[in-house]
């Protein structure tokens, strides 16, 4: 089991969610985050005070998937989230040691 984490542009969230759904990924967790890589921020001006805002709003999607599905999940997210411009985001994959469905107590792949 792997945890696929994707940091994407917020407006791409719906597209990615639908694409993952079509792939058979049952559930995802979404967090609003902020960050930056190579994409530049912007300047805000309040009376005489100027602030450079480096952090940009992003959406983080986490999905626990079976090992066999990981490659296709990565391709799917890439395709749905890509705009071709700087700031599209990144995908990370972690190994999951254990997973449990709280309602039933199922573990492992049955929990996904």
């Amino acid at each position, binding site marked *: 089991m792997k945890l696929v984490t994707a940091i994407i542009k917020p407006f791409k969230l719906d597209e990615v969610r639908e694409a993952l759904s079509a792939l058979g990924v049952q559930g995802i967790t979404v967090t609003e985050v902020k960050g930056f890589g190579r994409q530049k921020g912007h300047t*805000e*001006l*309040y*009376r*005489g*005070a100027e*602030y450079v*805002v480096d952090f940009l709003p992003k959406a983080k999607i986490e999905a626990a998937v079976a090992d066999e599905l990981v490659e296709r999940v990565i391709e799917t997210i890439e395709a749905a989230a890509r705009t071709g411009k700087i700031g599209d985001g990144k995908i990370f994959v972690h190994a999951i040691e254990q997973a449990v469905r709280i309602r039933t107590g199922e573990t492992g792949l049955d929990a996904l």
Partner: protein
Amino acid sequence: MRVPFRMPAWMPVMLWGLLAPVAALAVDGATDAATMSKGDVAWMLTSTVLVVAMTVPGLALFYGGLVRARNMLSVLMQVFVVFSLIVVLWSVYGYSLAFTGTGPFLGGFEKLFLSGVTIDTVAETFSAGVVLPEYVFVGFQATFAGITCALIVGSFAERMKFPAVLAFAVLWFTFGYLPVAHMVWYGEGLLFKDGALDFAGGTVVHINAGVAGLVGAWMVGKRLGHGREAMPPHSLPLTMVGASLLWVGWFGFNGGSALEAGPTAALAVLNTLFATAAAALSWITGEAFTKGKASMLGAASGAVAGLVAVTPAAGSVGPMGAIVIGLVAGIACLWGVSGLKRMLGADDALDVFGVHGLGGIVGALLTGVFTAPGLGGTGGADFAIASQLFIQAKGVLITIAWSGGVSLIAYKLVDLIIGLRVSEDEERIGLDIVAHGESAYAK
């Protein structure tokens, strides 16, 4: 079904009987011909209410939106409570010290606890023989004292102890506000006798509060992280709401300062409309040129700058003069919150000096210019710009010196007894939790 009204015979007799005593009211020993107009009273009561709205929630929201979320309630609280406290103190001794007596600097205690002020006593207006119920005047002026003291809290926002704020407000109200109000607005007052023109309080309210704020910002010190950490406003929509309420309420602030519902009030209202609009426009134009974008905060701030600047001028300059005053104030105060602010070096958090102090100075001086009949003002044929400017400048300097001196002593005293500033940890947590045990916004 409408029934036609036929006046019973006793009604005119009763009406005459009721009105006769009003017509016969004595005015501080003046003639029996004193008249009281329902229109004047209605307008003045309305104006009083408008000035209350300017403070709560107008000023409260204008300031509140500008601070960080963790300090929102502390700003709302300081404005609300200072206003309430000062208004009560006004009734106890403020009115008496400001508007009685024969001294040039301060009045006496003859009207302590409003003694002698009853439903029958009257206050004069600017027209000979025209009076208002004294209660109306007491109330109207109370709101002015309240908002002036509430203005100051913007300077030391986000780091001053709540009891210290209140203690300072009481001291400054007593020794800073009352003498200046007496000097400028009371017949025996030093600056009134000089002929200083301050229709609704450019000196008494704005320069007075602006200087007190600046001194406070210096003495309490800069906020933690100032200049390094980002401290953007947490709710500019609320700031805009506050600024809008300030504008609407200010029609009462300036219009009511005419003390009658007549041509002068109309002029004051008109000037309050035009100067404010002009200042908003000139501020954002200045912004567009210097920073590339016109901002909402700029428009709101510009409007307030215009309101401040037209305050001393509202009843004596013409509409075109008001527009010029607004245009100048917008640019001047834009500099006041940027270049001048950097020069002064204090962390005047909400730009009380930059907008109210500087705007008041600009307005007070330009009042001396645009009251000239040749420039559309209501000045008499013998009005001389140069000499009036000198009188205006004198008033400005006296106010700055007085307010500065009193503030310095008051802050120092409060610091010694209570301590002005919260601890670093408390400042990081935020005053809402630390001083009031509340959070403005549930997470």
